[in-house]
Every structure is written in C-alpha cells, then in structure tokens.
C-alpha cells in the first residue's frame, strides 16, 4: 500500500482550506449572543428539552379530548420561545415584525414573490424570488430597490449583506437584501424594485407568527427487520403539516435507510381518518418553521453499529376535524456496506473536428452482479461546465438504478497531454432511469480536443435492502372537538 502522508494529505488539507470568518461578522454575532445570554440569564429558564418532550406528549394526549386547536396552539407556542422566524432562523423576537404571508406579482413573463421580511431595531432583511427573468444575476443585483411605508418614508438598501443565487431546479433567482430598521409600529410596507415592481406587504409581530403552530411528539414507531421507523415530531400549521421521521437501523453492518430521494418519496402518503390522502409536497416556509420543534442537537449519539437518520417531510394541510393521521410507506431501501466494482475500458474516436451535437455509436457493456448496463450512445454536448462527451446508458429499471452507480471514470491514456479531463457522473436512483458519464473535451481556449479518447469506467454495485411496509399512526387534537 502506498504511503498516505504528503503530498495527498497536504493537498486535501489545502483544498479544504476555507477562509477565516470576517472579524466584523464575529464581533456582530458575539454581540447578539451576549444580548441573548443576558435575556436568558434574566428570565426563567425553560425546563430541559427532553423533559419537556415527554411531559408535553403526555399532556397533549390528556388534552386530546377537550382542547381545541387554537387554545392548544396558544398554550404550546410560547414554550418554544419566540426565537425562530419562519424562513429565517433564530432571531430575538422582541420588537420583531415579519411578513404576514408571501406575496407574488406577475409582470409579463416574470413572477416576483416576496417570501419573507424581518425587521427589528437592528435592521431589515427581505427575501424574494424572481422567476422567468431574462436578466443576468449581476444586472439584477444592481437594480434599484427600496421599501416605503404608507407615510412615504423611503428606506434604501444598506447592503450590509446581499445574496443572490439561481435555483437550478426552477431557474428562479433568489435574493436577500438588507434595509434599515422599519418603524416598530409598521403594519404595511411597499417593496419597489426596477423596472416597475411595486408590491404591498403586510407585517405582523413575530410573536403572532409563532402562535399558528401546534407541535406533537407522538414517537409512534414500527419495526421491520432491522429497521425501526418513528414519527418523532409533527408540526401542524395553517399552511401544512411537517413531520420528522427517524430511521434507526440496528444491523451491525450499518444500513443506511434514507427516505428522501426520488425513488422513495413517490411512495410515501399521509392519510387522515376522513379518507384524504396526500403525498409529500415541498413547503419551504413550513420546513423552516418546523425546525424549531425538532429535538436537536442529538444529546447522545447512537451506540456503534447503529445508524440514526432524521428526515423532515412536509404535506398540504390536514382538515381541522381530522383526529388520526397515518403515514404509509410501502417500502424503502437502504444500502449495506458491501459493494462490488467492475471496470471496462472504452475508446472513442471523435474525429478531426468534433462539433457540439455530434453523436457516436458505442458499445460498452458491463455486467455487475447480474445486472447489465449498456452504454450505446455518446454525444458531444454544450454543458454549463464546458463542452463534453456524454455517454448515456439504456434505461435501467428503478431497482437496478439503486443497485448500480458509476463510481469512477479515468482517462489514463488521454491523447491530449495536459488536457484537463474532468468527469461528471450521475447514478444511484436518478429519475431519468439512465446513467450518464461525461468528460471534458474543451481546451482553455475554447477549442475542442478531437482524436481518440480512451478511458476506463468503473461501476459499483451496492447491496440494497428493502424493508416495509410501514404504517405509523398517531392522534392529533381536533379543532372540532
């Protein structure tokens, strides 16, 4: 075996060399912590979270028959503290106002949605997403934008912080911008942005926002083979329901059972006792809101040999007169530590002058653990990362997709010395049902590397174990009782 000490260790160390935090940020956070610490020191401490979870669960069950929705919410809400703002995270909430509800506006092909606003004595932060915009990010960042109260006080951006990014799934531009503090009594403010966006926003106190939430800790579990699946936390809010599902595998070979993934998510349903059925829906604000109810951090790690995974799911709201909820998971898969690897070498001649759109017939057949993976086509594509040759396999069925993935592609005999060959890979449980492998053929000057390319593809097969079905049921207080 080769020595693992420098240079590889030093290279890895250098690669993971992140910048130091800025002193201004550290000082500012230090002051926030000091301020919060003073509040904590001068107010009665909450009981320990674990104690509260168990006592709270018992109290909720007792209260089930006679407490209605809103009283429960009001009774429970304050126990969480008012420190978590939907969509934002932990902030001190005294004197804090937030957006009452997201507001969207459409102009032509563009949709601008203000998703959150938080204002306090320290300043204002505004989050919005813009869909359908045909403008680059940097141009958007320079757009004039401001907030204006009904009495025409104008608040220009402070630019203490600004972030903008593109959501690759939706293509939406997501922006966070800072402004000065708004008047503490403000209940309305308008957001103006170029070219002619004008969106009126309703504000409410953070305390009010925290009260539309009811949280249960049902700890309802079911075990199948070596996997114990539990619904540990349920947060019911006006906009939906948030669940924390915990999978624990007791197999000493460390199975990893994860619900979240294209293959598993399609199979999950939440059914109420009125017969309504729903599949998971992505509700970002609810995910944020639900975080406050999750028991974290894990106070104790599971003993060696067990794998504990907590995942959150969100669903559309349940009717207020529902009293029983059942989470159905027909099956889900986990991976075991063992694996097999097979590899093959392939040569492709791209010709003298390769062009984007050129296709090539190839015949790369690899069999691993009885599963045949056939790559029969290669195409030169213009990928955001550069021009590359993309190999696409024939579709695999979903089980096989989960069992086999590409682990490595290398070009040891690249005909272009100094060419920076990069690889990308997809595999695992992809929704397309295909495996794809790509490698760069673009030089730094934009020209394409033709000729013969020889490379090695390695496939990995992992043991996939399926467990289920699971049907986990728990009670919720009904507003109609």
């Amino acid at each position: 075996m080769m020595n693992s000490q420098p240079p590889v260790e030093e290279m890895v160390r250098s690669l993971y060399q992140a910048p130091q935090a800025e002193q201004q940020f550290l000082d500012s956070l230090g002051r926030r912590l000091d301020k919060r610490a003073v509040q904590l020191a001068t107010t009665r401490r909450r009981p320990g979270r674990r104690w509260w979870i168990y006592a709270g669960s018992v109290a909720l069950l007792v209260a089930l028959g006679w407490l209605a929705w809103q009283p429960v919410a009001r009774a429970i809400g304050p126990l969480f503290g008012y420190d978590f703002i939907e969509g934002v995270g932990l902030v001190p909430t005294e004197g804090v106002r937030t957006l009452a509800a997201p507001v969207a506006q459409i102009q032509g092909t563009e949709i601008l949605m203000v998703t959150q606003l938080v204002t306090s004595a320290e300043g204002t932060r505004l989050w919005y997403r813009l869909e359908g915009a045909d403008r680059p990010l940097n141009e958007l960042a320079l757009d004039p934008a401001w907030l204006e109260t009904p009495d025409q006080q104008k608040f220009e951006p402070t630019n203490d912080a600004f972030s903008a990014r593109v959501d690759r799934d939706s293509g939406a531009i997501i922006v966070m911008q800072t402004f000065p503090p708004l008047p503490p009594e403000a209940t309305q403010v308008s957001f103006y942005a170029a070219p002619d966006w004008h969106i009126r926003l309703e504000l409410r106190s953070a305390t009010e926002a925290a009260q539309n939430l009811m949280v249960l800790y049902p700890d309802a579990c079911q075990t199948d083979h070596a996997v114990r699946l539990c619904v540990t936390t349920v947060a019911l809010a006006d906009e939906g329901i948030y669940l924390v599902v915990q999978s624990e595998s007791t197999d000493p070979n460390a199975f990893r059972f994860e619900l979240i993934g294209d293959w598993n998510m399609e199979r999950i349903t939440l059914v109420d006792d009125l017969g309504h059925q729903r599949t998971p829906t992505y509700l970002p604000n609810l995910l944020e809101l639900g975080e406050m109810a999750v028991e974290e951090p894990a106070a104790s790690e599971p003993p060696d040999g067990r794998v504990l995974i907590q995942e959150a799911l969100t669903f559309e709201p349940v009717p207020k007169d529902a009293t029983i909820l059942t989470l159905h998971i027909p099956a889900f898969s986990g991976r075991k530590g063992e694996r097999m690897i097979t590899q093959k070498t392939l040569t492709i001649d791209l010709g003298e002058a390769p062009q984007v759109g050129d296709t090539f017939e190839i015949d790369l057949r690899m069999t691993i653990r009885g599963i045949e993976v056939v790559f029969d086509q290669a195409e030169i594509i213009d990928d955001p990362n550069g021009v590359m040759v993309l190999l696409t396999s024939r579709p695999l069925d979903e089980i096989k997709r989960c069992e086999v993935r590409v682990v490595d592609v290398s070009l040891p005999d690249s005909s272009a010395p100094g060419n920076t060959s990069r690889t990308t890979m997809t595999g695992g449980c992809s929704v397309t049902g295909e495996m794809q492998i790509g490698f760069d053929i673009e030089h730094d000057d934009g020209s394409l590397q033709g000729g013969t390319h020889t490379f090695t593809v390695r496939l990995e097969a992992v043991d996939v174990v399926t467990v289920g079905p699971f049907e986990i049921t728990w009670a919720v207080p009904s507003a109609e009782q």
Partner: protein
Amino acid sequence: MSDSSADDYALVAAAQTDPRRFRTLYERYANSMYRYIFVHVQDRPTAEDLTSQVFLQALEHLPDYRPTGSFSAWLFTIARNSLRSYFRKPHPALSLDEEMDVVSANGELLDFIEQREQIVHLISLLELLEEDKRELLRLRYASGLTYREIGEVVGRAEGAVKMAIHRVLDDLQEKMGVME
C-alpha cells in the same frame, strides 16, 4: 480527556450556570465552525447565517448538554443538523470542483499546487467519494477536529475514524499515483 476538553467542560459548566459566560466558548470555536460551514455552502452570507444559527441554538440548548461527549462534538452535531436542514431545501447542488474553485480563489492553493492536472484529478476523485467520507475529510481538514472529536460527531469510534481517514487518503494517494 484532553486538556482542551477538560477546559471546555469547565467553561460549559460556567455557561450553564450563567449564559453570559458563553462568549468564551463562542470565541474558541467561532472560526473553525465558520470554516466548516463555509466548506459546505461556499457562500459567505449563508455561512454567516448558519454559523449564527448554530451558536444561537447552542446557547439556547446549553442546559440540555450533558458532558458524555466533548462540547466541540456537540456543537458540530448542531452544525450538521443545521446543514442537513439547509440542504434539504432546494439549493443549487455544489459540486466539489465549484467548491474548490471558490477555495482556490484565495490564491494559497495555486501557490501550493503547481500542477493543475494533479489538483483537477484530486478534485474529481474527491467528488466520487461517498458523502460520509468527504464529511470526515471536512471535519478533519476544514474544522481541525481531532479523530476523537470527529468520532463523537459521526457516532464512530476514534480508531475507526482514524482508520477510515487513512484509508481514504491511501486510496486517493494510490489513484493519484496512477496518474503520475
């Protein structure tokens, strides 16, 4: 127990009694926490937001902390939970070479690595690693945690962590060697 851990326990005990003494713990871990989070998210404002969340949660939950493991492991467990929540939502998937592009922008890396091919190859090898192995490398090399602390964070024995990291490095070394 290392001196540092023993020292932490004393500081934690003091902060559990009086939250105003949490500042010392914050100052001790702020930078390594920020760097660990930054390596994951590669965006300064996001790293700052998440770092803030982690320390505010830690302050809030400090009474729940029990000294069965080190404070740093507990703190990084909070960070991992926060990152897990962050990545559960649809953010642009960060490929490791993007990660490294940002990191290398500080110039230090390019000073160190003269042969670009080598680093590109290493990046592609790291990208192919399983996430749990990359996480071990981040905890070790971005955050500077000890093997024992990493073991407490990921729920594995110190020896197993040490072995796993060495195996990853050996494997990388071997594959890099093939290239040379």
